[in-house]
């Protein structure tokens, strides 16, 4: 059914039939005249959001006994349950940040 020689013939005929690129004839100039100004990407709402979020997180955890106990145990070199939870949360956040970096690098 699909004899390669025939496929080549059809391909060649189709390429012959194609006229190729259209000459510019002022097209680009017309488009350039209609180009609207580029809107700058505003990044401050993102950073403000991150700061507010981090601040809220910190203030809610600051007075939590779990965080304080975990921190103290960790500094004392004691792997208690609060220290383990704290460690686990930090490892999770690091893994999340690492995954996000790899995903961003892959997109570029």
């Amino acid at each position, binding site marked *: 059914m699909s004899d390669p020689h025939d496929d080549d*013939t059809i391909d*060649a005929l189709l390429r012959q039939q194609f006229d190729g690129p*259209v000459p510019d004839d002022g*097209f680009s100039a017309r*488009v350039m005249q209609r180009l609207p100004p580029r809107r*700058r990407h505003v990044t401050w709402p993102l950073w403000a959001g991150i700061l507010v979020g981090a601040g809220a997180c910190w203030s809610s955890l600051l007075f939590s006994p779990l965080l304080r106990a975990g921190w103290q145990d960790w500094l004392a070199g004691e792997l208690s349950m609060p220290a383990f939870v704290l460690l686990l949360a930090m490892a999770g956040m690091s893994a999340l940040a690492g995954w996000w970096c790899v995903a961003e690098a892959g*997109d570029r």
Partner: protein
Amino acid sequence: MADSAAEARIDQALVARTLLGNDQRAFEHLLRRHQGMVRAQLRRLLRGDGAMADDLAQEVFLLAWRKLDQFRGEARFSTWLYRIAYACFLQACRKRSWPVGDAGDGEVGQLPAPSPAMDLQLDLERAMQRLSTAEQAVLLHCVQLGLSHDEAAYVLAMPLGTVKTHAARGKAKLKTWLAAWRTTSEEQIS
């Protein structure tokens, strides 16, 4: 291959200059490099309507200007533009209720036997118009615009398998319809 890789790098650099420096001249370079093929693509899709194709091409480049930061370099810049152009074409078809449906799906007959006055290219044009719209689009992108099956799948937003099926089916139909011309065409090409 090396040429197309170099071309892709030039496009990437121009895109980066446009985005980082808000450089309209870099975008103008991109526009001049690609307008010819995008307009040719749209002319074929619109069956030779040059004015309409140019209107759509203008829309394509304005969209590309607005959405340039969404170009991630996963595909070549030209492929990205073809994809926008094909989406604009489909949208225009829906807006103006042009038929996008199938033209001659299923019927695999043969064109009338060629008389000396009939031209092979004219017959090919007629045969192309008898193909379904999807088959026409796949052959245009894969054969005439020189995209790979993967790239055509990206432009036409179709699964890869569907693209391959349309390409094989379209060519098979053309072979059947142009069977009477086979010897003549082989002579012309050689």
